[in-house]
């Protein structure tokens, strides 16, 4: 069993109109090498499900996004995601804007093959008004409480970036916070992971095995992508690239800015991308942010 493939193999599995979930959180551990491969492809009309960072912004900039299912989009140190903002303000994006908790609750429902899970989150806000497909349900018990029935967020494909994987599809997320990648993986028909390091077969100590947050039967393909989260963080190995973020933010202010960004960083391919960013020697040593 060998699930090793390339970013191009992953993107070849995508179809127009698919619902794609992304792992990570904001500017943290996003599968950016795969995102760049999507940007180079002609795949379109995607429904993007993400705790949004530059994955959301870049896919919006490239006109790949038909619908966004999200709770936020941010670069954190730069609070407003520039391309999400620009495309959002132009109108035309279909939206399901959710509370952060509702988002993971919907993925959880999908992973457990349930039609919905109840929550209070979202009640009495504009979320239910703007998304009339979100229904309420009354508790069948004596309390009779009215709750929001968060529908399952089923994904066609999940795309994640992890620290370590093996050819069987076993993965390790070694950063202190694994975020919700396990739920993204469980909610999808097919999950593809890129990894900083790929081994033939992991042999782990008990301590290290705890960094495995979901099962390999969920993983359909493994891509070796060193610095594949750049310009986002991949703790504990490297932090976000603020100089690259600034360049990316500036692209949203210029006419033709996105095309220039594509020409400079994306179109020439991942090897050229690494060269443009100082090589993996620099990218892999970017300091982790301190708060």
């Amino acid at each position: 069993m060998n699930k090793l493939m390339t970013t191009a193999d992953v993107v070849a599995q995508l179809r127009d109109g698919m619902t794609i979930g992304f792992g990570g959180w904001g500017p943290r551990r996003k599968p950016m090498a795969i995102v760049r491969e999507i940007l180079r492809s002609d795949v379109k009309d995607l429904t993007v499900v993400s705790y949004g960072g530059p994955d959301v912004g870049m896919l919006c900039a490239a006109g790949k996004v038909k619908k966004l299912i999200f709770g936020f989009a941010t670069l954190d140190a730069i609070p407003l995601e520039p391309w999400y903002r620009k495309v959002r303000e132009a109108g035309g994006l279909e939206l399901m804007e959710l509370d952060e908790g509702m988002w993971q609750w919907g993925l959880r429902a999908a992973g457990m093959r349930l039609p919905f899970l109840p929550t209070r989150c979202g009640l009495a806000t504009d979320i239910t008004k703007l998304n009339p497909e979100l229904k309420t349900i009354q508790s069948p018990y004596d309390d009779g409480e009215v709750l929001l029935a968060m529908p399952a967020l089923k994904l066609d494909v999940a795309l994640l970036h992890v620290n370590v994987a093996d050819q069987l599809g076993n993965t390790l997320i070694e950063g202190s916070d694994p975020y919700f990648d396990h739920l993204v993986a469980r909610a999808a028909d097919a999950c593809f992971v890129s990894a900083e390091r790929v081994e033939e077969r992991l042999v782990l100590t008990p301590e290290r095995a705890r960094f495995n947050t979901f099962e390999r039967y969920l993983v359909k393909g493994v891509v070796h992508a060193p610095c594949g989260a750049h310009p986002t963080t991949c703790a504990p190995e490297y932090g976000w690239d603020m100089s690259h973020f600034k360049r990316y933010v500036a692209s949203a202010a210029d006419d033709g800015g996105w095309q220039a960004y594509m020409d400079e960083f994306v179109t020439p391919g991942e090897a050229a991308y690494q060269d443009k960013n100082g090589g993996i020697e620099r990218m892999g040593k970017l300091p982790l942010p301190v708060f």
Partner: protein
Amino acid sequence: MSNNTEFTLAELMIVAASEAWRCDGEVLASGIGVIPRLGASLAKLTYAPELLMTDSECFLVEEPIPLGPRGDYVPKYSGYMSFERVFECVWGGRRHAMIGPTQIDRFGQTNLSVVGDYRKPKAAILGVRGLPGNSINHINSFFVPNHNTRVFVAGEVDMVSGVGFNPARWAPGMKQDFMDIRRIVTDLCVLDFEGPDHAVRVRSLHPGVSFDEVQEKTGFPLLKAPEMGETPHPTAEQLEIIRRLDPHDLRGAQIKGNPPGIRTAA
């Protein structure tokens, strides 16, 4: 403890923010942003050691961590609080967060999503983030660095992201009991929702600020709390703790012009 007249407005606001967590018991204190975080840290280091705090990432600490580059300071972790555990904490109600929404209305409803029309907004902000869930599940306070009528809007906020005391938004059977909106700390005053039917009151005015000025810069009518006075000045002990927690003076960049705490009337 004697009052110290040499303090900035940001330091006055940190002390006012810290008061929000008084008497909360063992809850996770989440101050989002420099001034709220320093407020929570100050509370924990003075009258509320029982508060739980994180390193602003995913570890719990019993000793609040100084802001910014840490030099040789090594955080002392006492537990773990990943984002997944934060949701479990939020939904269980054991948290008091202080965040800075883009808009706040007279019901305490908040907006962090968009300004203007939802479909084609004048400004897209962050998105609703955790406001819907936070607001319906646990205690919340707010922080406003620039008190004006664009923040404190007339009518409802443009996109209701966080719930409030607006009866029209609540259908029969929905549980409002866990909603608990406490304080708003601004650059002019401290507000609460303790008026009749949760009307907004001015609880205290910062030095040199008049009630009329606050009212003029607020898009809805305000009440005066019967005990309305001047916002307490930082003590020398509090200032010493604040300066230790913020060695790079990040607080100095939070309020435009970094004005002194005691302003002369304009």
